C-alpha cells in the first residue's frame, strides 16, 4: 500500500520546529556541571519525592473520578448526560487559583459553612495547606482530562461487543469491566497525561504547597528563577530537566502498557442502570455541586463586591467591577487575543497531530516525536518562555516574532501539543488498518484515502483535542507572563496583574466574564454542530 509520507513528515517538522529550539537553546546556554550540582541537594531530592508522590496520588484520584464520569456518561442511560458532561468539562475552564481560593475560604478559619457549626479549623491548621490539599485540587483539575481521553476510546467500542457479553450472561459490572479493558489505551493516555499535568502544575502548588511548607519541583524552580534571578537560571534549567525526565517516564509507561487493538467506531452501547439510575444521578449531582457550583458561587459573590471582606447586602453588591474592567481597552483586547490564540493553537495542533498520530502506527520517528512533545508541556512555563525569548528576540528570515502574538502562538503550540495528542493518539492507535487497506485495494490514492477514510474517523477525537487545548490555552498564564507585549495582552496576564495589584474583586469579575465567554462559545459550537456527535459533551 502506497503512503503519503510527506504529509506526516511536514506536520511533524512544523511541530518540532515550534517545540524544541527554545528548550535546546536554553539548555545549551545554561546547563553546566556547576548548575547540575543542584540536583544532589537535599531540597531538590525532597521536591522530587513530593512531586512524584503528588503526581501519583492525584492521578489515582483523578483516574477514579474521571473514569466514573466517563463510564456513566458514555455507556449508560444516566439522565441529562449532555448537561452533566458539559458541566464536568467546565471544571477545566475554572482557573485553578479560583478553585483553590474558593476551597481555602470554604474550609478555612472564617468559613461561611463551617464557622456557624463550630467546625472551622483554627488559623494555622488549615487542612488544605500541604500535601492533602494539593493532591485533592490537582485531582479535581485533572479528572476532566482523564474523562476526555477515556471517553474518546469508550465511544469507539462497537456496541456489538458489549451486547455479545450481555447475551453471554455478563452482568453490568462485567460489561463495564470489558469496556474499560477495551478502552485501555484511552485510560492509560488519560492517566499518563494526568500524571504529567500534575508534576508540571505550578498554580495549585503555589497557592497550597508554599504556605504548607511542602516544596515541589515546580515551586522550587519558580523560586530559583524569581528569588535568585537569572544568575540561577542554570539551576532552574537543571531542575526542569528532572521534570522533563519524569514526564518522559510517564509517557513511556503509557506506551509500554498500551496494547493496541483494532476497532472500528459505530453505534455506542448503552447500558441500562436500572435501580442504580437514581443513586448514580444523585452522586453525580452532588459531585458537581461540590466541585463546580461552590467555587463558582464564591467567585461570583466576590466579583459583585466592591472589595474583599465587605458584608454582602443590597447596598454593597453591584456591577461596578464589571463596568470598570469592560471599559478598559486592554481587557477587551486581552479577551480577544486569548480567544484567537486558544482557537488558533487548538485547530493547528489538532490538524498537525492527526497526521503525526496516524503515522505513529508505523513510523518510529513519529512515536519518538510524540514522546518528546511531553517535554515542553511539563517544563515550567517560565522556562519555556525564557527559551522563546532567546530564540525569537532577533528576526528569523526577516520576521520578528518577538513583541507580537506570533511568539505566544508558537509557544502555545509547543506547550499544548501533549494535551492534543492524548485523545487523538488513543483513537488512532485503535483504528482498524483493514479500513484503510480496503480503501487502498479499491484504488484510492494515499491523499484521498487520508481525507475520506482517516479524517472522518479521527474527527471526533480531533475536536476533543482542539477543545482540550482551547480550554487550557484560554486562561494560560505562566508562558504569556513573559511573552506578552503592549497591545498583545492575554487574559491570564490581565487577571494576574489585577490580583497582584490587590484588586481581587476586579480579577474575579474578569474571570467571570472569561467563563461566560467560554460557555457561550461552547454552546455556540454545540448549536453549530448539532446532531453530529463531534463535541466531547455530545456523547
Amino acid at each position, binding site marked *: 500500500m502506497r503512503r503519503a509520507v510527506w504529509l506526516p513528515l511536514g506536520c511533524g517538522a512544523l511541530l518540532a520546529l515550534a517545540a524544541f529550539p527554545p528548550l535546546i537553546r536554553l539548555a545549551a546556554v545554561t546547563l553546566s556541571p556547576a548548575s547540575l550540582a543542584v540536583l544532589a541537594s537535599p531540597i531538590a531530592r525532597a521536591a522530587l519525592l513530593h512531586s512524584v508522590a503528588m503526581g501519583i496520588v492525584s492521578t489515582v484520584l483523578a483516574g477514579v473520578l474521571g473514569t466514573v464520569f466517563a463510564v456513566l456518561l458514555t455507556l449508560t442511560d444516566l439522565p441529562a448526560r449532555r448537561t452533566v458532561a458539559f458541566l464536568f468539562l467546565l471544571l477545566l475552564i475554572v482557573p485553578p487559583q479560583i478553585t483553590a481560593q474558593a476551597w481555602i475560604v470554604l474550609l478555612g478559619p472564617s468559613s461561611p459553612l463551617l464557622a456557624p457549626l463550630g467546625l472551622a479549623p483554627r488559623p494555622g491548621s488549615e487542612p488544605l495547606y500541604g500535601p492533602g490539599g494539593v493532591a485533592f485540587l490537582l485531582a479535581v483539575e485533572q479528572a476532566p482530562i482523564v474523562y476526555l481521553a477515556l471517553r474518546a476510546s469508550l465511544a469507539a467500542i462497537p456496541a456489538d461487543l458489549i451486547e455479545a457479553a450481555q447475551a453471554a450472561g455478563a452482568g453490568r459490572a462485567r460489561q463495564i469491566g470489558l469496556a474499560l479493558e477495551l478502552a485501555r489505551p484511552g485510560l492509560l493516555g488519560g492517566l499518563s497525561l494526568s500524571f504529567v499535568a500534575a508534576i508540571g502544575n505550578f498554580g495549585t502548588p503555589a497557592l497550597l504547597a508554599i504556605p504548607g511548607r511542602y516544596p515541589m519541583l515546580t515551586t522550587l524552580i519558580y523560586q530559583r528563577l524569581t528569588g535568585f534571578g*537569572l544568575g540561577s537560571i542554570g539551576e532552574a534549567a537543571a531542575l526542569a530537566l528532572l521534570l522533563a525526565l519524569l514526564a518522559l517516564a510517564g509517557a513511556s509507561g503509557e506506551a509500554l502498557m498500551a496494547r493496541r487493538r483494532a476497532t472500528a467506531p459505530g453505534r455506542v452501547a448503552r447500558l441500562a442502570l436500572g435501580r442504580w439510575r437514581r443513586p448514580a444521578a444523585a452522586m453525580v449531582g452532588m459531585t458537581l455541586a461540590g466541585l463546580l457550583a461552590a467555587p463558582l458561587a464564591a467567585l461570583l459573590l466576590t466579583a459583585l463586591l466592591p472589595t474583599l471582606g*465587605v458584608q454582602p447586602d443590597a447596598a*454593597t453588591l453591584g456591577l461596578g467591577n464589571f463596568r470598570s474592567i469592560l471599559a478598559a481597552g486592554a481587557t477587551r483586547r486581552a479577551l480577544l487575543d486569548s480567544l484567537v490564540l486558544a482557537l488558533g493553537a487548538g485547530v493547528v495542533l489538532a490538524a498537525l497531530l492527526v497526521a503525526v498520530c496516524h503515522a505513529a502506527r508505523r513510523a518510529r520517528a513519529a512515536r519518538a516525536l510524540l514522546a518528546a512533545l511531553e517535554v515542553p508541556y511539563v517544563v515550567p512555563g517560565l522556562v519555556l518562555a525564557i527559551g522563546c525569548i532567546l530564540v525569537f528576540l532577533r528576526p528569523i528570515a526577516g520576521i520578528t516574532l518577538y513583541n507580537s502574538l506570533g511568539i505566544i502562538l508558537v509557544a502555545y503550540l509547543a506547550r499544548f501539543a501533549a494535551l492534543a495528542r492524548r485523545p487523538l493518539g488513543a483513537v488512532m492507535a485503535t483504528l482498524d488498518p483493514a479500513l484503510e487497506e480496503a480503501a487502498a485495494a479499491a484504488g484510492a490514492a494515499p491523499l484521498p484515502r487520508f481525507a475520506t477514510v482517516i479524517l472522518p474517523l479521527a474527527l471526533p477525537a480531533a475536536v476533543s483535542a482542539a477543545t482540550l487545548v482551547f480550554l487550557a490555552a484560554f486562561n494560560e498564564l505562566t508562558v504569556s507572563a513573559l511573552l506578552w507585549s503592549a497591545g498583545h495582552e492575554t487574559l491570564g496576564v490581565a487577571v494576574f496583574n489585577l490580583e497582584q495589584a490587590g484588586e481581587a474583586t476586579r480579577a474575579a469579575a474578569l474571570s467571570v466574564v472569561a467563563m461566560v465567554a467560554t460557555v457561550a462559545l461552547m454552546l455556540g459550537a454545540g448549536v453549530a454542530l448539532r446532531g453530529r456527535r463531534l463535541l466531547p459533551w455530545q456523547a
Partner: protein
Amino acid sequence: MRSLLMLMAVSLLAAAPARAGELTLYTSQPNKIAAETVAAFEKADPGVHVSVFRSGTTQVMNKLGAEFMAGRPKADVLLIADAMSMQALKQQGRLLPDPGQDVTGFAPGTYDPGRTYFGTKLITTGIVYNKAAPFVPHSWKDLLRAKARGQVVLPSPLYSGAAMITMGAFTENPAIGADYFKKLAAERAISVAGNGGVLNQVQSGSRAFGIVVDFMALNAKAKGAPVGFVFPREGVTAVTEPVAILKTTRNAKDARAFVAFLLSPAGQRLAARQGFIPARQGIAPPPGFPSAGPIHLMTMDIGRILKDSTRLKQQFSDLFGG
C-alpha cells in the same frame, strides 16, 4: 585606536537607529497606575509615545535578563518597585547616568549618588489588620504575641522587592532583631507570594494580621474593607520605586524627559493623587496617610542588602518554604 572607537561608535549607531518620539517602558506599577502615568507624561510632552510592558518586578527583571542574554534589550526606561534591582543593574553597567537631572527636594537616600536611578515615591511596609483581630498592633513585636499565633501572613522576599527590603532592614535593626523572621515562623506565620495575596488573606478574614505595603491596604480600607493599617512605632521600611534609563536606549533624549517629568512637582503631585507618598519633600501626601513627618523610616544600606540578598532569601525559604 581612535578610529577603532569611531568605527565602533558608528556601527553601534547603525545597529540602533534613534527612534525619536518612541519610548518603551518596563514597569512593575499596577496597570491602571502605569497607564495614568504614561498618559500624563504624553500630555505634558506631546510627540512622545510610550509603550508599556507591565508585570511583577521579578518577571520584568527576568524578561530584561533574557533580552540581555539574547543581546538586544527592548526597554528604554525602567520603573520598578525597589532600588535593589536597580543597584544590581547599575553594578552590571546597564544603566545610563544622568548627572543633569534636578534632584532638589529629594532626600539623599532616595536616589543613587551616581545619578543612575531616582526614587519617585515612598511605598512603606506596615501592618494591616482585620477589624475582627484580637487586638490592634502598634509594634512589629506585637505580631509575636501569643494571641497572634497562626494569625500572621507575610509576603515572600523571593517574590516581592518590598518584602526583601523589609527583611534586610529588620535584620540590621537592633530594635527588631536579626531573628525576627525565625520567631515569626515558629509562631506559625505563613508566607504567600506577593503583597496582593497578603491583603486578600487579611481582608477575607483568613488571617488577622498581615505585613503589607501601605497603599494597597489603605485603598482597600477606602473601599470599605474591614481592615486597618498601622505604621509600627519602631519605624517602617520603604521602597522608592526608582526610575532609570538603560544604557542601550535608542532615545536618550525623550527618556531623560520622562524621568524629569516623574521627579517634577507635577509628576510628584500625580503620584500623590494615585495614593502614594511623594518622594519629593513639600508635596502633600494623599488623604488617609499621615504627612511625611510622623512616618519614621528605618535606615538601610541598599548595597549591603543586595550583597546579603541571596543568603537572606535562602534563610526565608528555609523558614517558610517559599
